[in-house]
């Protein structure tokens, strides 16, 4: 009874405390974290219960022993498989050359360590801050330089970044003309032009 009560208090705390917190407090956990903590609290309760549980009598027959072993196996493996299936999943993604579209390949390039765009630029919160945020770059690129379309501007920024440096950022971006193949440049531009 005390165990159930303690579990109830912990779970109530997990779900009720965040209601009184704001995101700005830097302490407010979202619902997926709350669900994880509830699961962990349940597991903690199970451990406490098992530590206190009375001794279990030996099985009365070999078939019952077999059933017990099979049950432990099924619960253990089934539980982990279930957990892995409710965790965040990425979609099956072909890695063959023909599998991905231009923007998808461009996105992979953007976040590739060897290309390194994301080390300075961020998209929707992912990436660095030494360069401009590119979350809506497709919208802003068309008005950066008069007479230059979004694609022309982005291409110039990629091949010759010092031509125009967005204030207040420093002129630190290297030119990518020698680093990327024409196909990779096309893929990267396709991705950036989709960021509206």
């Amino acid at each position: 009874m005390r165990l159930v009560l303690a579990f109830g208090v912990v779970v109530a705390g997990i779900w009720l405390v965040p209601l009184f917190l704001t995101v700005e407090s830097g302490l407010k956990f979202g619902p997926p974290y709350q669900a994880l903590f509830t699961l962990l609290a349940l597991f903690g309760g199970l451990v406490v219960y098992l530590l206190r549980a009375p001794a279990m009598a030996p099985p009365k027959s070999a078939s019952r022993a077999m059933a017990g072993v099979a049950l432990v196996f099924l619960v253990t493996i089934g539980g982990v498989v279930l957990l892995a299936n409710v965790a965040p999943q990425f979609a099956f993604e072909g890695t063959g050359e023909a599998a991905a579209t231009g923007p998808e390949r461009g996105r992979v390039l953007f976040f590739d360590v060897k290309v390194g765009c994301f080390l300075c630029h961020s998209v929707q919160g992912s990436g660095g801050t030494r360069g401009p945020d590119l979350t809506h770059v497709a919208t802003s690129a068309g008005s950066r330089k008069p007479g230059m379309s979004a694609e022309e501007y982005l291409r110039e920024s990629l091949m010759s970044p010092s031509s125009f440096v967005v204030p207040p950022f420093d002129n630190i971006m290297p030119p990518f003309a020698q680093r990327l193949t024409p196909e990779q440049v096309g893929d990267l531009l396709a991705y950036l032009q989709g960021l509206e």
Partner: protein
Amino acid sequence: MPPEVSLINDRVVIWVVAQLHLLFAAFVLGAPIFIVVSEYLGMRSGDGRYERLARETMKIVAMSYSLTALFGGAMTFVLVAKYQQLSNFLFQRFYPVFGTYAILLVVETALMYLYWYSWDALAKHKGVHIGIGVALNAVGTVVMFLMNGVGSFMLTPPPSPESASLWQMVNNATWTGLNLHRFVANIAFGGFMVALFAAFMFLTSREERDRAFYDWMGYIGNFIGVGALILLPVAGYIYTKEIFAYNATISTLLMADKLAWFFVIQGVLVGLLFLGAMYYMWLSIQRVQGGVRFHSYFRGAFWVALAGFVVWLVPQNFLPSLTAEPSGPISEVTIPERVIFLGFMPAKGLAVSAMVVITAFVYLLYRQAISTGTMVWGQIDTKAQLALTFLPGLAVFTMAFMGPIREMARGEWHIFEFMADTTQASFLTPLGFTAIMAGLNTTLFFLLMAAVFWLGFKVSHQG
């Protein structure tokens, strides 16, 4: 599964046969280490139980050899038939390695049969018999190291693999780490599997004498399994560090991108292994006279381990990849700013270290309790035997789950940044699908082991 790829595809087929080959190989490599040590302890102490333990386990190992070879042959067949470009390259460039491997495999098999069938004949020459066992283990370990050279080469090849020397290819950036990790893991695996046999035999035995023996056998199996398990995170850390030093792109994929959540599940698995081993010791100490004085330490240790478990499992975010877009506010699926340190490696490392240290502490307490109290063998809570069936199930699943992570770390490459994998079924499999495959392979492995076990123990006992 992508619509253009059928459910039973080349990838899935090679996955199943390679995994079963590796699981049986791990068993026939890990258990003989355990067996020879047990035989040696029997000789030194004069305790006949060690001899019986070694002999009964070796019976299972002998039968498992043929299944290892069967799945090894099936794996080679699928590789040659469906992955010709890769297998041609590997067989040509590693020809001396595969040649040596084949010769040593014959030597290993001969030693295994000699060791098994000379048990009675060399009963009065134990030193010679143990020497054969040591030779069997030495050859088996070299065989594993050779194939680790090929496997690790695929993930971390030297620059210009076409012109690299054979030694440069074998002694690649992660060969040492993989050798160490698999060697320690095989011992843990062997120990837990022995504990499983012991638990099953305990639960189905009717004689008090048999129960006492199998209770002791389970204790020894868990003792070895936990001893190796404590070292395993260190070996894993060394291996992972070698991968990171080789290429940071792989580390991004593993720890920050698509495979990051795989490591959360790995944390669940390894954490449960530690907690399961501790729980067995907790139950085991109950039947030690005077063991009650250690209870409060054990309880405290469980709380520390649980705290470490929680910290280990707190993810940086609930996103499946670095580029995934959340369906709701980003703040709901990412760790809050003030506790962001919980999601970083120092916190995880500290949590794992705490679990390792506290398990070692419990282990020492347990040994202390046994050495200062009286152990009544055979009179143990049935839950302890179920814990011994929980541990090997989880250990095998962990191996079957971690293997695909190592394979997927190569991304779209058969040989990293050298030979692309352009086959139709070349894709990273999502976490859920990977876990289902690991579950399938684990179940198949145990069904086959159950058949071996039934033939080795039950049928022969009835005879």
